[in-house]
């Protein structure tokens, strides 16, 4: 029986290997260019490597990647770093800097009938310990850590009402321990969802209000840099910002709040941005507009936002299609087909000449 099993095992195709390349360097004329990746859900190591090769070839110096607590410490005090190790190993090999985002609560740290996003306050010390273990392990590779994602949305708290003071208490729980683990670490807070949800909404809270209240709750002492999510939705990047409008330049309103509270000493990282080209979604534009708006946004950041340390596009590629509008934020398909938006960003970042007309004129009636 064992012999038969061994013989059958020979029939299983060998996994693609992903040996490290000679040390690579990102060639770019736009060093603030960055892209958010989704490598943590990738099964095959060669796909992690291929994704990062394409990121480097596009001219992006930095990625933002999610390292979920729930995946790594699935059982209390038992860590599985294997996937994170692969991501860090290949990022380093490609010469790409990693900004790590931490979040998602393992089952042992929350009530049984809750979702992965449900974050009880009594789990904050456990999360802080995980963050310290993460920062310690990757001290030589990762100096930037974002605490949680879009904490002004109820969904991101497992449908609990977002509470700026509670988020500040989380920052307080992790800040000093992270700095003891890695004195060079930059703790990024915020990463707020652009939303106009009013006070009392079950869905979330306006990001401008949430940030103000974070500062009011004493957040300034517990983070080193602000992460900003800013999306253009249906407006071009040049459209003027306003508190009651969601558009690309809403980032300027968030930055104004930073300036009010600490005279702009706090660095700002745009960790999510971009346009979507879903044919049906009300918050999307056409693919041709998406390319034009994205390139204009890159120029805007270069010319107008000298305070932005990075400009990260959401999102490079998904391992599998979602079947909905998130697919239309990607630059590369799950099958590694490069979308025209990838080529356009690459040409901009690398300083290449554009290809000229990309489509035909409308047919005449």
């Amino acid at each position, binding site marked *: 029986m064992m012999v038969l099993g061994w013989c059958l095992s020979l029939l299983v195709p060998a996994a693609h290997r992903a040996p490290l390349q000679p040390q690579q360097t990102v060639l770019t004329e736009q060093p603030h260019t960055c892209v958010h990746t989704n490598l943590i859900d990738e099964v095959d190591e060669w796909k992690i490597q291929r994704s990062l090769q394409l990121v480097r070839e596009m001219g992006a110096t930095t990625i933002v990647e999610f390292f979920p607590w729930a995946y790594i410490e699935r059982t209390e005090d038992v860590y599985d770093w294997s996937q994170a190790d692969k991501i860090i190993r290949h990022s380093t090999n490609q010469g790409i800097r990693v900004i790590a985002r931490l979040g998602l609560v393992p089952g042992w740290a929350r009530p049984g*009938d*809750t*979702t992965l*996003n449900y974050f009880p306050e009594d789990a904050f010390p456990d999360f802080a310990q995980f963050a310290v273990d993460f920062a310690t392990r990757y001290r030589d590779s990762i100096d930037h850590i974002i605490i949680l994602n879009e904490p002004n949305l109820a*969904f991101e708290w*497992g*449908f609990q009402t977002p509470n700026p003071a509670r988020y500040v208490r989380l920052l307080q729980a992790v800040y000093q321990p992270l700095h003891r683990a890695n004195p060079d670490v930059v703790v990024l807070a915020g990463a707020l969802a652009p939303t106009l949800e009013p006070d009392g909404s079950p869905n979330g809270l306006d990001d401008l209000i949430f940030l103000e209240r974070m500062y009011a709750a004493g957040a300034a002492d517990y983070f080193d840099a602000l992460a900003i999510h800013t999306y253009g939705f249906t407006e071009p990047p040049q459209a003027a910002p306003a508190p009651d409008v969601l558009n690309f330049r809403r980032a300027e309103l968030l930055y104004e709040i930073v300036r009010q509270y600490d005279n702009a000493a706090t660095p700002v990282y745009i960790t999510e941005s971009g346009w979507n*080209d879903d*044919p*049906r*979604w*009300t*918050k999307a534009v*056409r*693919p*041709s507009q*998406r*390319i034009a708006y994205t390139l204009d946004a890159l120029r805007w950041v270069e010319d107008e936002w000298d305070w932005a340390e990075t400009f990260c596009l959401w999102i490079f590629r998904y391992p*599998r*299609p*979602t*079947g*909905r*509008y*998130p697919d239309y934020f990607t630059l590369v*398909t799950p099958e590694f*087909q490069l*979308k*025209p*938006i990838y080529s356009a960003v690459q040409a901009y970042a690398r300083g290449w000449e554009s290809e000229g007309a*990309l*489509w*035909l004129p*409308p*047919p*005449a*009636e």
Partner: protein
Amino acid sequence: MAATPRRIALTVVLLSGLALLSFVAGRVLRPQTETPPFPTGEIRIAVDASYPPFAVVQDAELAGFEIDLGSAIGARLGLPVRFVNISYDGLYDALISGQVDVVISQLLVNPLRMGDVRYTRAYFDAGLVLISSSATPIGSISQIPGKRLALEFGSAADAEARLWTRRVRPFEMRPYELTEYALDAVRLGEADAALTDAISARLYLRAHSEWNTHLAYVTQAPFAAAVALERASTWKAIENAISALMEDGTLDHLLSRWL
């Protein structure tokens, strides 16, 4: 061994005891009576109302094909319907955490979700379609070589056509800025066929009902409703209602109102 009256009596007592034990154990161990399909007395339906013409907010009211479909399911089951507008990110979590009974929101059947949810039969196919003139119909990729294929630059159709360039003999790709221009190109003779998603095609053809066309699906993207896996009776009720709406023509009627 002969059966004595005493032995028979003992056997009867033992069997009676076993039966009683079995009955008690059955009462204790039997799974709890299944939760009713809609325990709140209404059907709570999650929709992402940012997808016209399927679900959208119009004048502060929800409207669209999926709103009509949800209402029709409620009417079929004799229950009131409450729509909960949730963005796509939260749809599955809302279902799994029991905040809603069903999601009807252009969900594609996702095998990775099947540990948590169960899908109904598909109620619409949003896959890619080839549109050609009915006088010169083109029904499949095998007929594309040598033809002029119009599509929207950068769209899913564009990505699919780029794959075709590696699978079939040469054809001319004609990219346009908008899907409407690609369909115009076929209607006006600049192209032999257009490749587009089924929703865009149906909307365009509604506006050009005088144009006789041939429509052929080349990929599938079936939309289905989803129910939490453990809610078997809920799934059955929704599945049966959708099936009935298909069979009596209601579904087609609702579709024709919007697409």
